[in-house]
Structures are given as structure tokens and as C-alpha cells.
């Protein structure tokens, strides 16, 4: 077990690389602070204006068909409720395997995303299909637990067969200026993503941008998460509003683009929460294409954390196929409201 103090050794690689990138001999909070605060600022109005402009792109016919299928293939089909049951999760997995039973050419989502205790159920339901199981971990969604609990949460999901871990950062630590604490948490969870056989689950770092509030904070949190070894930066838990807005995602896409310029490495981006329509999803794909570049237009590097989005994409897909508007009765609903 890893010790409970914040001085416990995080991933050697992340810390060593951070020292190298920052040009310091010892990674301190002061060094991280001056590095993060040295990032260019973000002008809110300008950023939102750019996002709105990207949102006016008109995607039609063949490009729309391509975008719909690409978006479907990027979905982390998600259920994260206290009322989740094995039955619900199996339903979700079935939906992932056959999103549109009337059309086998429909691509599958990239993953199903569940709480840690549902990983085994999901894994079993998905079998050998190329749909990943993603688990939220580290005391999702608030992140308010001790480090050992968070690490145990992570390992538990890994051992149950999770391919991907969606962790939350400690927003309190971030907002109080304890960047080193956030760095160490991410680095330790990244280390905990290593399986017994040496392979690794991919780590998505949820910054909960709705609680970070400013775009300057989103940019800093993005760079901190990449520096600490996150494979993905992710907007939100879906439990806080606003969740995945286009401007926030734009900031994150700029971050991964600039990170690649700096390090040569790619990091993925996952907006999650609040993306419900095909029209919205296409705006995100446009933004990916024009800001980060087409390299990110791949389920390996871009995901949507969503549940109802899939059915709207399927409706649009059917409309394009049959040439008439479809309706809710023609797509299967595996997550109807309980209430």
C-alpha cells in the first residue's frame, strides 16, 4: 500500500519529466505555480466568440454522415447513478454492441462508462467486443476522500477489468493553490492504473470545469493534468452544471495541441455531460478538427461522455438512411427515466 501522506512517491516518470519541462531540480508547489501562472491568459469573450463561430459551421450530406458515425464511435456510453443495477448495465452494454438493431452497419461506441462496482458486469456483458469498459474512480464525483481510498477505488476497478479509469481531481486543492497536491494525486492514480502484467489502463482526468469556473483555471488544470501523466483530459463528472461546454472544450483542445508542440506527445480530450444532440456533437467535432487538428478525430483521442446523445445520433443516422425524419419509437431506449 502507498502511504497516506502527500509526500509519498508518485510516478517517477511524471515527476522527472515535470522537473525537466519546468527546468527545476526539485518539483515544488512554487515551481508549478509559476509555470502554470505563466501560461497565456484566456479572454472569456474572445474564447466564447471563437467557439460560437465554430458552432456556425454547416455540416451537410456526406460530411454529416461521416460526422455522425464518428461521433457514435467516440461515445463513452455512460450510466452513473445510485440506482444502477446489473440489469441496467447489461442493457447499456447490449446497446453498445448493437446501437441500432435495424442497421448492423452502425458503429459501436468506444466504451461503456460505469461505477467501479459495475465494471465486472459490464466486462462480462461486452465479452470480447471491441468496446472498452471505463470506470469512474477516486471517490467520484466529489473526490472528497483520502488518497488510499482513491487508490483502492482505482485498483478495484482495474482488477475488475476496467480498460480506462476516469478520475476526478481535488478541485478544492486546485482552487486553494495546492497544485503539487493535485499533481501528486494524478501521478499516483496513473501509477495505480498499471496492471499486474505491466499493461496500463488509460487514465482520464476529470477537472470538473464547472467548479473551476474560469477559463484560466481550465487551462491551468489541463496543463497540470497532462504534466502529471493523464492520458485524457476530461471536462466534467456530469453532476455539476455547467458541464461540457464548447468553449471549455476549445480551451482543452488548445492545451493538447500546445502540449504536443512542446513534448511531441498526444493527450486525449473528453467533454462529458450536457451534450445531447447530434448538432451539438458535430460542433465539437468541428472544433476538434479546426483547433487541435484531424489527428484528434479518432476515438482513441477524442470521446464524448454521454448517454442520451447516442439515440439522437441514431435518429439522425436513420433520417439520412431512410430520407425521412425518424422518431423515438424507432430507436431503442435502454436508459429511460426512473421517475
Amino acid at each position: 500500500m502507498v502511504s497516506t501522506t502527500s509526500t509519498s512517491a508518485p510516478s517517477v516518470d511524471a515527476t522527472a519529466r515535470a522537473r525537466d519541462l519546468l527546468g527545476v531540480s526539485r518539483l515544488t508547489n512554487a515551481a508549478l505555480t509559476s509555470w502554470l501562472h505563466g501560461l497565456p491568459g484566456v479572454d472569456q469573450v474572445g474564447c466564447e466568440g471563437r467557439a460560437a463561430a465554430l458552432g456556425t459551421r454547416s455540416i451537410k450530406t456526406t460530411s454529416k454522415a461521416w460526422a455522425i458515425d464518428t461521433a457514435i464511435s467516440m461515445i463513452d456510453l455512460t450510466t452513473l447513478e445510485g440506482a444502477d443495477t446489473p440489469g441496467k448495465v447489461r442493457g447499456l452494454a447490449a446497446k453498445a454492441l448493437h446501437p441500432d438493431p435495424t442497421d448492423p452497419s452502425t458503429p459501436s461506441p468506444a466504451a461503456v462508462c460505469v461505477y467501479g462496482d459495475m465494471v465486472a458486469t459490464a466486462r462480462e456483458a461486452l465479452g470480447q467486443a471491441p468496446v472498452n469498459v471505463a470506470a469512474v474512480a477516486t471517490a467520484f464525483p466529489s473526490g472528497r476522500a483520502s488518497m488510499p481510498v482513491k487508490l483502492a477505488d482505482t485498483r478495484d476497478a482495474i482488477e475488475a477489468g476496467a480498460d480506462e479509469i476516469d478520475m476526478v481531481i481535488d478541485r478544492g486543492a486546485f482552487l486553494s493553490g495546492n497544485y503539487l497536491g493535485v499533481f501528486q494525486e494524478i501521478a499516483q492514480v496513473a501509477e495505480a492504473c498499471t496492471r499486474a502484467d505491466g499493461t496500463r489502463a488509460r487514465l482520464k482526468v476529470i477537472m470538473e470545469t464547472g467548479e473551476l469556473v474560469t477559463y484560466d483555471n481550465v487551462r491551468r488544470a489541463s496543463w497540470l493534468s497532462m504534466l502529471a501523466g493523464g492520458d485524457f483530459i476530461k471536462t466534467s463528472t456530469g453532476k455539476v452544471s455547467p458541464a461540457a461546454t464548447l468553449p471549455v472544450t476549445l480551451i482543452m483542445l488548445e492545451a493538447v495541441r500546445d502540449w504536443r508542440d512542446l513534448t511531441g506527445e498526444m493527450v486525449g480530450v473528453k467533454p462529458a455531460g450536457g451534450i445531447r444532440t447530434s448538432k451539438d456533437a458535430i460542433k465539437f467535432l468541428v472544433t476538434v478538427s479546426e483547433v487541435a487538428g484531424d489527428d484528434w478525430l479518432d476515438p482513441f483521442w477524442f470521446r464524448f461522455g454521454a448517454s442520451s446523445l447516442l439515440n439522437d445520433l441514431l435518429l439522425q443516422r436513420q433520417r439520412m438512411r431512410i430520407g425521412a425524419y425518424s422518431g423515438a419509437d424507432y430507436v431503442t431506449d435502454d436508459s429511460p427515466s426512473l421517475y
Partner: protein
Amino acid sequence: MPTNQRTATDARVDVRKTYKLYIGGKFPRSESGRSYEVVDGRGRFLANASQGSRKDARDAVVAARAAFPKWAGATAYNRGQVLYRVAEVMEGRRAQFVAEVRAGEGLTERRAEAVVDAAIDRWVWYAGWTDKLAQVLGGLNPVAGPYFDISAPEPTGVVGVLAPQRSSLLGLISVVAPVIASGNTAVVLASELRPLPAVTLSEALATSDVPGGVVNIITGRTAEVAPWVASHRDVNAIDLAGAADADGVVWGDLELAAAENLKRVLRPAGEGVEAVEPDWTRTPDLSRITAFLETKTVWHPKGR
């Protein structure tokens, strides 16, 4: 060098004043070395004034341009204080102004006193405007978007001023004060036939706190010098008030020359091609100030 001898009623021979140009805070004679006779309303000799040349005007523009940034950049409160100080100094020279106005304009003592009083009051009126203009003429623009958007007046720059020919003090002050109150600097062509109050004003300016170059006063032939001011590319605006009754001056020609660098032109009063000198005793409004102002609008987004 006075040549005519007046009968001295007392024993003392008085010391006479030399009337010179006022450029960059200094009192040079014209670089041309010329002077011309100034006479009173009945044609009696009063003084020899410097007859400024185009090169004097050129030097005055250089001085005005050099003085502009600091004068425009001074706080409005400071400009108001400085201008009020001019009124104080003028008050101290009241008798001299009265004598010169009386002689030059052929007024009675009482009329001349009234004119000087009005001139000093006019100066005070404009002095008080310096720190009100931005609020009266500027303000926030409620644009349809997340922007702070504000417009404020700024001085146009170097302003050429043809001072009125008849009203040699009240008219002069009525055109000079509004130009400099907002932060412009001025190159003033004084009344051709009645230049003495302008020279005395320059002495008042030099002994108050007005920085050198803010007001430059050239005496001489309006028709000779005005075209050089009107066509000067480093002059931003021109007030043609003094085209009325100026010998050999066609204001339209000056406006034509001013078009070459798109000077702001304040035309003389009157109808059509005619130029008339207005009644300077009437209460002024802001129009002589706004004629030499630019509006600057600044936008900035409002964000977190």
C-alpha cells in the same frame, strides 16, 4: 524706435514697449527682420509690430507640435488651473489691455473696460470647461454585447487660428481659449491691424503657467501667412474666424488648402462666400470647443 514725439506733460520720458512675436514661449522678432506700423482708429502711430513670415509660422507649428503631447496629456484639472491663472494675470494687466483695446478698436474708455472685463470672464468660462468636457461630451455606449465601450473627447492636435480682425481682445480670447482648453496647441495669427492686445496676451501667457508652445502668436499680414498655415501638413485644424475683414483673404482658398491633409475647418460666420465677424459679446456655447475635438471610442470585453 518711435519717431513721432508726443507732448510730454510730465518730465519723464516713458519707456516704450516692443511688440514681438510669441513662439515656443519665447519672444523673437520675425526671422524676416520686418516690422509694420500699427496705428489707432484715427491713423495715429501706436507701435511697430513684428511682421511675421511663413518661416515664423513654420517655427510656431514646430513649437506647437512639440508642446502638444504634454499639454494634451496634462490632467484636465491642471489645464483648468493653468488657464485660470491666465485670467488672474490678465486682470493684473487690465489697464494695459484697456488702453490697447481702446486705441486699437477706437472705443470709449468705458466700452473698452467692458470689453476687457468680458474677455477676462470669457477666459474664466473656458478655463472652467477643461474638466467637464469628457463627461458632457463622452460617456458609456450601451453596445449589444459583452463589452465595455466608452467614448471620450480628445484634442485634435495643432490648430491654426485666424484671430478676428475687429475684436482684437475679446474676439481673440473667444477663439484661442476654446482651442487650448481641451488640450490642443495653437498657432494664432493675430488681428492684422489691431495686434497689440494679442502681444500683451502673449506676455500674460508667458508669465502665467501656460507651457511654452501651447499658444504661439504671430503678428503680421494675414493674407501673407494664413495660406502657409492652412496648407501646413502638420497642422490638424484651422479656425477661419479671422478671414472676415482680412485684407486679401478668401476663406474658401484657405479651406481648399486645408483639404490637402483633411484639416478640420471651422468656417467663418456668414452666408455663402461672405465672411462676417460675429458679435463676440454673446454668450458662447460649446461649438468652438467641439470643432477641435476628436472622439475616441475604446472597446474592451467584459469577462471573468
